[in-house]
């Protein structure tokens, strides 16, 4: 497995982080480095530990073992240094219901010296939010947009989005969220977002980490992941009752002479190994992120 980047020159550095809730292991020995600039997608199923990991990044959870550094700071000991440079959209869209939209903007502005009022106004317009509306009267999608607005308007160095698509309609997801994420990344800033909508991660992410049951299954640049995951269909000279072992195989299915493998590894090495087994490659395809995720989780 190739790490997204080395420990040096990274914005977020997590070393051997573990977390238990009432005896249940939520994060298991996670080591993760998020490079400066680009989009980092964290994918995993429900209850995989994505939100728990994000809460550690923001100092809402104290590391029980291991360490977390964001901008080189411990987020628990230095909340201002970390949170002041981070924009955060929470999964639960927690916002003060009693405020009006314009009050929330004015209140949030006070926390960020770099707040850009013109950009906030632009976003308000783009998100079609009524400044006089009460936060409690906003729909789930509008709450998500409101949360995005206050996370973005101070032009954070690090934008942390926890399931940002949840509640957003496809149009907003594609046109607004996608373009915002790319714009931030193109500015040289960093986006760290969690999702279980893999097609959207595939579209925007430069780096991907897969988390499953609290363990990090994969953590690499998107291009590398796509280049090293393949589906190979092998035809053997005689019918086999059991698929022969292929190094790097994640899943295998088939019967008789023809077996289909999803593999992780360099293409040339897999070809060579297939030849050694006496098999002929009848079909070879690259995998979508969705297929990679499923094969990593099922292996």
């Amino acid at each position, binding site marked *: 497995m190739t790490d997204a980047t080395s420990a040096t020159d990274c914005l977020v550095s997590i070393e051997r982080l573990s977390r238990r809730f009432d005896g249940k292991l939520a994060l298991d020995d996670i080591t993760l480095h998020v490079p400066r600039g680009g989009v980092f997608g964290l994918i995993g199923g*429900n209850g995989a530990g994505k939100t728990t990991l994000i809460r550690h990044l923001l100092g809402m959870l104290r590391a029980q073992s291991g360490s977390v550094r964001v901008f080189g700071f411990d987020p628990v000991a230095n909340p201002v240094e970390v949170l002041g440079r981070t924009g955060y959209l929470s999964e639960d869209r927690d916002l003060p219901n*009693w405020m009006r939209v314009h009050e929330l903007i004015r209140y949030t502005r006070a926390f960020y010296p770099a707040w850009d009022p013109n950009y906030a106004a632009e976003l308000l317009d783009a998100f079609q939010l009524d400044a006089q509306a009460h936060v409690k009267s906003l729909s789930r999608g509008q709450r998500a947009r409101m949360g995005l607005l206050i996370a973005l308007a101070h032009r954070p160095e690090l934008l942390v989005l926890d399931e940002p698509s949840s509640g957003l309609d496809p149009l907003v997801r594609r046109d607004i969220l996608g373009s915002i994420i790319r714009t931030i990344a193109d500015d040289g800033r960093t986006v760290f977002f969690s999702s279980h909508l893999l097609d959207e991660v595939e579209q925007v992410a430069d780096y991907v980490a897969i988390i499953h049951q609290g363990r990090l299954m994969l953590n690499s640049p998107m291009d590398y992941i796509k280049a090293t995951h393949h589906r190979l269909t092998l035809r053997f000279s005689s019918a086999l009752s059991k698929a022969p072992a292929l190094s790097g195989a994640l899943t295998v299915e088939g019967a008789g002479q023809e077996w289909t493998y999803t593999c992780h590894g360099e293409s040339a090495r897999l070809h060579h190994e297939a030849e050694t087994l006496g098999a002929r490659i009848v079909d070879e395809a690259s995998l979508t992120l969705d297929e990679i995720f499923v094969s990593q989780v099922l292996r």
Partner: protein
Amino acid sequence: MNSISSAMLWELMTRGRWQIPGWFLFGNFLPFLLYAAFHHFQVDFADPAMVAMHVVLLQLTMLIFGLGIVAAQGTLSRLFLLPVSTHRIVAWHFLPGSLLLSLEVSVSLGVQNAYFGLNQPILGPALFAAAAWACAQRLVGQAHRTLRSVLLASVPCVLSFCWFGARYGGWFQQPVHYWRHVTPTEFCTILLGSAACYLLTIKAISRDRCGEHLAVLPIWRAIESGLEQFLAGLFHSKAQFGSATEAQLWFEWRSKGFALPTIVLFVALINAIVVAVRMLVTGNWTESLQDFQKVTLAGGFLLPVVGGLSGLLLGTTSSGVQSRDHSATIRDLNTSGPFDRMGSFPASRPITNRQYATVILQAAVRSVALSWGLWALITIIAAIAGVLTDVPLLPQVSSPIRNWYVPGTLLAAWIGMTSVASAALTGRFGVFSMTFFTGILSLAICNLLLEHYASQQIHQLITATFSILIAFCVTAGTALTFLVALRRSVILPRHGLRCLSFSVALTLLALLLRPPGLAIAAYPWIPAFVALVILPVATTPLAIEWNRHR
């Protein structure tokens, strides 16, 4: 679980297994404190003033027990999508609630009677509690979370409590006797009142279930709009906040801090209206004014209690959104709620725990000072009115504590608000409140056992020793908390020194103003009380730190 009714009952008992006993203990806290004080000062429990005390405390405890049951039952609207008829939803909220409230009132009065040798009636209040619950459910059913509906639905509630008060004397008159015998007419009134509430609630819930709300009269719109404009003007702030802490102070004050002064103002207004009505009905100005003065003075005593409730609000930082964690289990059903862990919105504000704590304390100072100022102003008005009509105010404050009463109300309100706020800020309020009330209950039981099984001399000796020990523990515990806070750098050393100087000065002042003949066992409580005044300076940032970074 073979029926929806039994599932609802199971949910009530599962969710309420800690909440209901917790609120029961909380509801009994003030009556026990007051009766214990009266018992200590050997007040005659046969005094007619005890009837008024019984009526007021009973209504207060009923309200608190009711809150506990409401919290355990959860919102009605979550049941709207279940395949269950509206009348069954209402019935299964009415019946267990009424029974529980009746039971809690009976047990509470029974224990008070047994413990303090009171002779309070049980049957009438218990029956009324059941009806009051029905009335409260009607209020909830009617409310639709709009001001006009709440006001409209409050009318039968107020009327029912006036009817209850009239069982102890005439309508709008001072209670003069206990409600010992429930007449058939009274029984039928309770029964019919409950039935009417039940039917009206079904109607209200049926309407609510399909999203059909009450028609809005133009006058209500005007009132709501006016009130909103008034509040907007009241909390108006600059176009841009100067700093993060200024913004956060606005947040805390606007959303939580103003609650205590509002309650004080509201109670004062109700008191004034009741007294005015009584004056008009009875024509007895002197007695009405005396009642007004008594209630005003007693209000000072209640400030710490109301301050505590407001502190609960001030210390609440949890998200209004239900947790959707993968780890959500049946335990979360019991423990998650408004006093749960800090929400992601406040937790992700880029301010330090020290700054956050300072803001919370500033909001508390403002809230307590304004409320106490309002109370003091009303007391002065009552005193002036008394002087003008030859009804002196000050002799009504018992002489041994007169010097301490006025500053005591201020400091006790501060302690009430900040200590509860600190406990709530930890996000583990349930644990703290249960520990506290269980401790109080254990002490009460020990005291009862001593009273019955030990000689008076030994009882007094043990009580005094224990009291001194607790006072020392409070003082030492405060010192220790400050050391921990300093070590964890959540307070600055200069703040610690200021607190120390302040506590020494306040202790000396309290000693100077001490009542003559103060018992030896009471002396350690002077520094202990002062310690409780400064304790929030250390506990607030520690609580925030504990909750924010779990």
